[in-house]
């Protein structure tokens, strides 16, 4: 499914956090939002995921406005994994994934055979079969993140929104999660819009990057066009050296901060 944002503005109270953002994500594409803290990328993701109401503009999913759709119907097409989530201590992986079936279930009915099949598939895809009876609180960070992603997959979405899915994970787990995301993108043709902080990881797993700054999209394009010294200096206010990484994916090394004014020296 194609996801489009048109002239999207949003904010909290009087403060404008998104200022006329237009962006479109093609079907089966991975687009990653990057940008400094507080630039509005998480707000953008939340607005697309209809957690926040936009003050202007619209988000279209295959031409239909997300904010006027029935929220349960939308949950069958678009799944969202926010940055923070909580779970009761004794929640098992399997139960969490079953919760992902919530939008598909009818009132006063249990899981039917199709629901169970989807749950099994998802547990298989995310390699969680062996952990299904474990409590979420006893898992490692990477396993837990896989379980949450599994829950979103159980919704059988065509569009997946992920807010910093690799935060708090060690390097290996970060890769594990991103490889899972790429695999899902390839095998299920999922359209993915996510926020990442690690630029090298973002460049490695995305088709396109969109750099957000001061409530607007400043640059948007394939990684090779975005991971460049001038762009990084403009967006992140750092001096960086770019090297040609494996598979000709650019790789950046920060050298110095060039923040003007402020408190830094």
């Amino acid at each position, binding site marked *: 499914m194609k996801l489009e944002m048109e002239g999207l503005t949003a904010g909290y109270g009087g403060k404008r956090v998104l200022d006329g953002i237009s962006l479109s994500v093609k079907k089966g594409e991975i687009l990653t939002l990057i940008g400094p803290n507080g630039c509005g990328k998480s707000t953008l993701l*939340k607005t697309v*995921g*209809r*957690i926040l109401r936009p003050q202007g503009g619209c988000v279209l999913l295959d031409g239909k406005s997300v904010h006027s759709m029935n*929220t*349960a*119907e*939308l*949950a*069958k097409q678009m*799944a*969202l*994994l*926010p940055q*923070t*989530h*909580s*779970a*009761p*201590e*004794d*929640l*098992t992986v399997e*139960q*969490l994934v079953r*919760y*992902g079936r*919530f*939008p598909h279930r009818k009132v006063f009915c249990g899981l039917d055979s199709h629901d169970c099949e989807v749950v099994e598939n998802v547990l298989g895809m995310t390699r969680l079969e062996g952990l299904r*009876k474990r*409590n979420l609180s*006893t898992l490692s960070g990477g396993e837990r993140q896989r379980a949450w992603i599994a829950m*979103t997959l159980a*919704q059988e979405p065509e569009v997946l929104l992920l807010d910093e899915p690799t935060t708090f994970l060690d390097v290996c787990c970060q890769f594990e999660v991103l490889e899972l995301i790429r695999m899902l993108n390839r095998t299920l043709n999922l359209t993915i819009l996510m926020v990442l902080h690690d630029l090298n990881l973002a460049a490695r797993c995305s088709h396109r990057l969109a750099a957000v700054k001061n409530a607007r999209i400043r640059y948007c394009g394939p990684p090779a066009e975005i991971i460049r010294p001038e762009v990084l200096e403009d967006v992140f206010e750092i001096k960086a050296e770019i090297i040609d990484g494996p598979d000709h994916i650019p790789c950046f090394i920060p050298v110095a901060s060039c923040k003007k004014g402020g408190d830094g020296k």
Partner: protein
Amino acid sequence: MNWSRIRTGRAWRGGVLFLLVLFACVAFLAGMRCGSLELSFGGILSTLWKGSAEDVNYQILWNIRLPRVLLGGLVGAALAISGAILQGVMRNPLAAPGIIGVSAGGGLAGILILLVLPQFSALLIPAAFCGALATAVCVYLLAWKRGVNPVRLILSGVAVASMLGAVSSTVLILNAEKVAGILDFTVGSLSARSWEQLHLVKWYLFGGAAAAMALSRKLNILTLGDEIAAGLGIHVERVRFLLLAVSALLAAAAVSVVGMLGFVGLIAPHMVRLILGSDYRLLIPGCALFGAGMVMACDTVGRMVMEPMELPVGVIMALLGPPFFLYLLRRGRSET
């Protein structure tokens, strides 16, 4: 690890629910049996069966004991369900019916009626019920700011409860000579409650419990966090409002007939959660059974220990509950 695997098993859950049913039944039977009138179960059954109005035993059993035990059970179930819902909605283990101001509001209304306007004491229950609900609405509105955030809700609940508590204390101090007569109401008591009180609140209690069951699956999703719940297609504010309304209704109905019976709404949900897990589809019936059994059992103990004097159920519960709860808490910790 093995333990947690057993605890999530179907057999375990079924077994626990069965034990809870058994507990509630035993508490009910004990409540019917014990007291100043000692009859065998056979005697109780035949007396109730014959139902002759001249029989003193029948009068005691039918008009005093049965309604009192039933009311205790209903109120206990209502408070426990209310507490369980609030703990889920607020995602806070310290939440209890008191936290949304229900006890303080119902208590103040009750105290005012009993002390300042004794000529209206026939209106005690409706007044306490309205006071409790009105306070809950106030707390909700005060916490509203583009949606209700659980932390804000808890804090405004604490603030409102403390203010109403101060007013209650003032009324009590100004009427110090009459306070002894309403002590029952301020700690929670089932003494002298009969069919009349039961009939006044039963539909609120049954309706509230049914609504709680109907919302249990959504409550499960809501405990995963607001954003996850919204992503799964839940109208977060609407569902949260419904859940708060149901728990306020249950607690208000309970408080209006027994007074400020606090403990059961806080502790019963925790106890049931420790043995049954936190799936609300099971937790709500579990809490209902356990809360009912707890209040019926404590009331029976309260009638027995200092015969012929009676200790209010609230006092017994606050005395006996914590040791048992702490035991469960420590046991639960060491095994997970």
